[in-house]
């Protein structure tokens, strides 16, 4: 039986494999798995690593996560207040940048690996690396320079600064976010992360017009990738559609994997990628809360059959809401394993 890493490499290289790689992104579910409240669960990196390893073992999918919650990046930049819920991901409860003067005060840590807010993630990564390094790809989440300000000042105020604010302050903030991004990628790679989900809603035409994207977002995407390298980078727009930008991003950065929105047309995405990179088709996991198992199965089949021909395809979820019934998670995975099976000799992946 192949490991997740072997399946992923086979999909990237277009070589033989038993099935397509299947990524199932369970984060908050780890707390229920261990029977802990979310706050207690995320207080200790050992909890997160244990749950990640056990859930992967239980369901048989191909990846592991070092991400606790997206607001962690704000904590690394000074946020002291995270709000916990019982039924969903922790939320940033205090914006570090409350007024424009705060931009000058924003400090990028010299070494993220030494930062107190990174220590539990580091602990988690060490355990994942020790237990599953080289066998199952360890994923980390990095917010792109152009999007990170939304975590620091709120999307509303970032849009204000971006479109209506002083250009010099905007540039100053973006430069600091870029410096943070580069250090964060380094810290994750040093700690053993194999894949970096490069999250950038501002790299989607659902957020900004194509012309703006090419003139303003793209230069920062290029700077991010030029500084951090393409190794393990996965382009993702936080569930926003981005088929229209794939070609430009590929040509200007060389990023080798594209994690589509569930609302993107998978077949179109594959056609645009045209074998140059890995295409990741995703299921609408918000609908999975209410779908009956038959409908889940049908959707997985639709996505996999649209993406699998010609190979270089991965099936995955987004960050799955806690409210999805466990039965639907199982059905999704069983269907992905079934429909994602590849012919002996690996023809479909080649």
């Amino acid at each position, binding site marked *: 039986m192949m490991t997740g890493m072997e399946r992923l490499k086979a999909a990237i290289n277009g070589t033989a494999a038993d099935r397509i790689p299947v990524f199932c992104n369970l984060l908050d579910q780890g707390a229920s798995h261990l029977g802990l409240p979310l706050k207690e669960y995320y207080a200790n990196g050992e909890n997160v690593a244990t749950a990640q390893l056990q859930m992967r073992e239980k369901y048989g999918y191909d990846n592991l996560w070092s991400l606790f919650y997206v607001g962690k990046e704000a904590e690394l930049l000074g946020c002291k207040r995270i709000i916990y819920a019982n039924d*969903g991901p922790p939320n940033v409860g205090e914006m570090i940048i409350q007024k424009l003067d705060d931009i000058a005060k924003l400090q990028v840590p010299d070494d993220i690996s030494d930062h107190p807010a990174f220590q539990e993630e580091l602990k988690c990564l060490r355990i994942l690396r020790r237990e599953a390094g080289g066998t199952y790809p360890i994923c980390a989440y990095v917010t792109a320079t152009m999007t990170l300000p939304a975590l620091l000042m709120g999307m509303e105020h970032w849009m204000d600064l971006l479109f209506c604010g002083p250009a010099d302050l905007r540039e100053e903030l973006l430069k600091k976010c870029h410096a943070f991004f580069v250090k964060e990628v380094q810290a994750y790679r040093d700690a053993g992360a194999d894949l970096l989900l490069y999250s950038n809603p501002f790299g989607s035409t659902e957020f900004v017009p194509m012309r703006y994207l090419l003139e303003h977002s793209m230069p920062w995407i290029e700077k991010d990738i030029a500084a951090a390298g393409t190794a393990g980078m996965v382009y993702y727009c936080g569930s926003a559609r981005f088929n229209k930008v794939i070609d430009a991003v590929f040509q200007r950065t060389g990023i080798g994997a594209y994690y589509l929105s569930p609302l993107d047309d998978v077949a179109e995405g594959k056609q645009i990628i045209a074998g140059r990179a890995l295409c990741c088709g995703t299921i*609408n996991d918000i609908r999975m809360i209410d779908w009956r198992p038959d409908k889940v199965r049908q959707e997985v089949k639709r996505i996999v059959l649209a993406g699998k021909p010609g190979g270089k395809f991965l099936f995955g979820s987004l960050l799955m809401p806690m409210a999805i019934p466990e039965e639907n998670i199982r059905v999704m995975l069983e269907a992905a394993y079934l429909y994602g099976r590849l012919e002996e000799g690996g023809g479909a992946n080649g």
Partner: protein
Amino acid sequence: MLEQIITAYNEAIFDTDRERALSIVSQAAEQGFSPEDIVFKLVVPAIEQMLASVSSNMDANLAQHFLTSQIAAEIIDQMIPRFKTAPEIVGTIVIGTSPGDFHGLGKRIVIGCLKARMIEAVDLGLNVPPERFVDAALEHGAQVIGISSMMVHTARGDNGCRAVRRLLQERGLEDRFRIIVGGAPYRFDEQLYRTVGADSWAENAVAAGQIITDLIREVKS
């Protein structure tokens, strides 16, 4: 002349160029267009145009919605005091984000678009308890309660729209108010608004303007 101005204004909005859009409005005022013409022939049709583009072209996006709404709100605030007669207010909505939700952008875009439709929007802010939605709707004589949620658990949670519906039922107020919801989870599940007990939902803030107008008329009829 007006057509040229409208075209130039719409182009500026689509290019997300705020300065150019505001400068076109200033030129229109200098050329003698009345505040009423600027609002009802330039700014409001630009919102309608945006709505039409949304349904036909994915390139009409969040940034354009944001700017359309912000510029509209800015211009309307400047122009209304200069109207010959005060415009008639169509109705009132109280609007906020659901408990545990700190994402205010969608709400703000909606409020800007509503201004252009002469709908008074009472901003209840972020992380609003269900009782506050209902009490504020009564206090302000609103017809509509707007609840914005950007996260699945804040959209579906027992403390959000479901609780507001429950309160309206318990207090016998269902005939007096309509509930509209919006935010990312509703875009990924178009039937979710029914699940949480809302009367309607809007895919985006620009579309919300028309739907809220219809809900107000429904309550008033």
